């Protein structure tokens, strides 16, 4: 069974690879390369896989899941300029792909402590662009 918790954060970013020239970055990322940055209202769907506990009837307590997501992700990300304030985005381009991978890395070990199995991280950069990450194995 899959269960999903949705959370939101708002942040600014710039898509720029520091190893490339301004011109190359412009070619690669278009408007997203504007050095002053720009922002999005990100929506994140955290999906876990498991069977409901026979006693509680829950795969994982969604309140506990929310606390972990808030602690590990939202407090770091929300209302920040990702490139300047949130490692690893000082050296990793904060594309939605890389943000999904970072969220996975932040959550997976914490959820595992409570027996949670992370299945997917979906991140909407806008309602019209989203990415799904299923971990390194997938």
């Amino acid at each position, binding site marked *: 069974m899959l269960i999903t918790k949705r959370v939101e954060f708002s942040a600014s970013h710039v898509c720029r*690879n520091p190893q*490339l020239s301004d011109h190359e970055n412009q070619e*690669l990322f278009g408007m997203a390369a504007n050095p002053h940055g720009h922002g999005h209202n990100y929506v994140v769907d955290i999906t876990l896989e498991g069977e409901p506990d026979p006693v509680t009837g829950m795969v994982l307590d969604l309140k506990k899941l929310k606390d972990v997501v808030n602690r590990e992700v939202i407090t770091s990300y929300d209302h920040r300029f990702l490139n300047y304030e949130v490692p690893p985005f000082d050296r990793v381009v904060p594309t939605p*792909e890389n943000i*999904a991978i970072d969220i996975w890395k932040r959550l997976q070990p914490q959820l595992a402590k409570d027996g949670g199995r992370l299945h997917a991280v979906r991140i909407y950069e806008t*309602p*019209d662009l*989203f*990415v799904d990450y*299923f971990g390194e194995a997938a």
Partner: protein
Amino acid sequence: MIRVTRRYRFSSSHRLHANRLSDAENASLYGKCNNPYGHGHDYEIEISARGPLEPRSGRAVDPAALDRLVEEQVLRTFDHTYLNSESAIFQELVPTTENLARAVYTRLQASWNSVFPGPWPVLDKVRIAETPRNIFEVSENDG
């Protein structure tokens, strides 16, 4: 492996009418969708591609490239048209959204290499919401 999905919209009209069936059978089968003058929808379409992270860009799919392909192969073909009269493929096939989803998948796949010449990303799936309550999805294993 990462899946990237982009959402687009187009508005078209269609009429569900199977040539091999009688008028009475069509009316009974398709109901109001068989109205002889057709009717329209605001289709919402999601195109998903997947691939590994490309280290230079930190992305798996260039959304601008996908936009170009979808604009050329889907939006320009179907947006603000009457599918039954203006699309060659629907001269034979009934323009149900099942058939439309397959047609979109086939068109994208046929031109995919012109925009994504490398081994990655690949087309993963096409999902069309004919209305917010009727949704159709085709992926590579559906043939």
